[in-house]
């Protein structure tokens, strides 16, 4: 039974950043390809191109961080996909995005969308993480510019903002709050 030439595409419903899309999708399309090439959501990056090492293609699928380059698009149908484009609101940046800006946690920016989404998954389940927990949550996201220190500081600062923890912000303004 050889069907090398047969690709049975299906019309499927995708929910990306709260918006519903109906797309004709073949089985061999990855979620990354769907997001970038079909839906034009190029915030999600193609890094190591399918070896699962870099984390640049990370998106949240039903709230959990997955590698979109190794996820078949059809298996994401009828599930909630969140990409970096869905993080900010019309009212402004997400606290994580704001903190990344303020802490210089972005250099070339290529790893940033994946970092933000891994960090969001962490803070959604653990609003008050330790630096070690932040590093563990970001272990699957490689950055070749910043050296991670500022990224971890930014995530901790965003967590404080999201908790409404003014004391943390005061400590930070007084000059550095992260103990390593």
């Amino acid at each position, binding site marked *: *039974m*050889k*069907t*090398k*030439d*047969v*690709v*049975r595409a299906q019309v499927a419903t995708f929910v990306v950043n709260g918006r519903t899309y109906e797309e004709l999708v*073949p*089985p*061999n*399309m*990855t979620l990354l*390809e769907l997001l970038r090439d079909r839906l034009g959501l190029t915030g999600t990056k*193609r890094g190591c*191109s*399918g*070896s*699962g090492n870099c*984390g640049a293609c*990370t998106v949240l699928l039903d709230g*959990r*961080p*997955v*590698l979109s*380059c*190794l*996820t*078949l698009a*059809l*298996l994401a149908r009828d599930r909630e996909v969140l990409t970096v484009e869905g993080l900010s609101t019309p009212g402004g940046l997400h606290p994580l995005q704001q903190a990344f800006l303020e802490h210089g946690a972005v250099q070339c920016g290529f790893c940033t969308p994946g970092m933000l989404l*891994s960090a969001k*998954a962490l803070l959604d389940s653990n609003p008050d993480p330790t630096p070690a927990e932040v590093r*563990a*949550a970001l*272990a*699957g996201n490689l950055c070749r510019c910043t050296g991670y220190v500022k990224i971890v500081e930014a995530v901790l600062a965003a967590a404080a903002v999201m908790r409404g923890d003014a004391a943390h912000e005061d400590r930070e303004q007084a000059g550095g709050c992260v103990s390593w």
Partner: protein
Amino acid sequence: MHRTLKPFELLEPESLDEAVASLARWGGDARVLAGGLDLVAKMTRWEMQPDCLVSLDRIPGLDVLERQDDGALRIGPMVTLRGIELSPLVQAGWPLLAAAVDHISSVQVKTMGTLVGNLCVATPASDLAPALLALGATLHIARPDGAAAVPVEDFFVPVCSSILEPGQIVTEVSVPAPAAGTGWAFKKLAHTKACIAKVNVAVTIEREGDVCRRARVALGAVASTPLRVPTAEHALEGCEVDRDLIARAAGLAREAATPITDLRSTADYRRDMVEVLTRRALTEAWDKASEREGRAS
């Protein structure tokens, strides 16, 4: 360079019977898709070009992670590594398994990857295989002609292969509850925490006073399959355990290893480290077993 996946048919059966029937019909041209981490990565590199993927995603009940009536841990084929890592049941009853999963660093990998998938990839460097060898796990396999139960040490075939044939699916891994007083340890040597092991070692020891009643010693990344070391186990069992005996058992583990030199390490270094890590693992496990016996009495 970015490559798109070669075309294939995607089947999404809603029962295990249907999945087994589909796999049998397609024979060697089909692959089981669980988490997809290894499979889709190989397909992206065009190392693997199956005509058909049989997804387990829509089959209900395959994410079961529970203690059975006989006390054993039952792990379904869609249970992710993240699910195991975060499970209070596993942390409390099978901490060796939780420790092995902890040596896999990427949250995304753990969120997507399944324990059964890791075993079916059958890499000799698996972090989970030595842990499951040391815990005496059994794999349950569905076949077109019925079911089979296979001890994990009989599952792997050199190199990066298993006894699974086309049409067969691992439906469950069953991990017996460690006996009271069992000590354990997991040791992994790798370039960074995110890297594949150069050597890994998992051990369990059951202890009665100063005597080792039962031992299991398992190695990863130092042979053509994950490896159990019966010689080291026999050296310990029924004997009073001291530093010398542990050193002798570690030496036997070294002799059992048949590592290769590759980009991660050399065969000589791996052999040396098998001995060192086995000695450390046995010492730690023995001490833990002692603590547990102390608490129980």
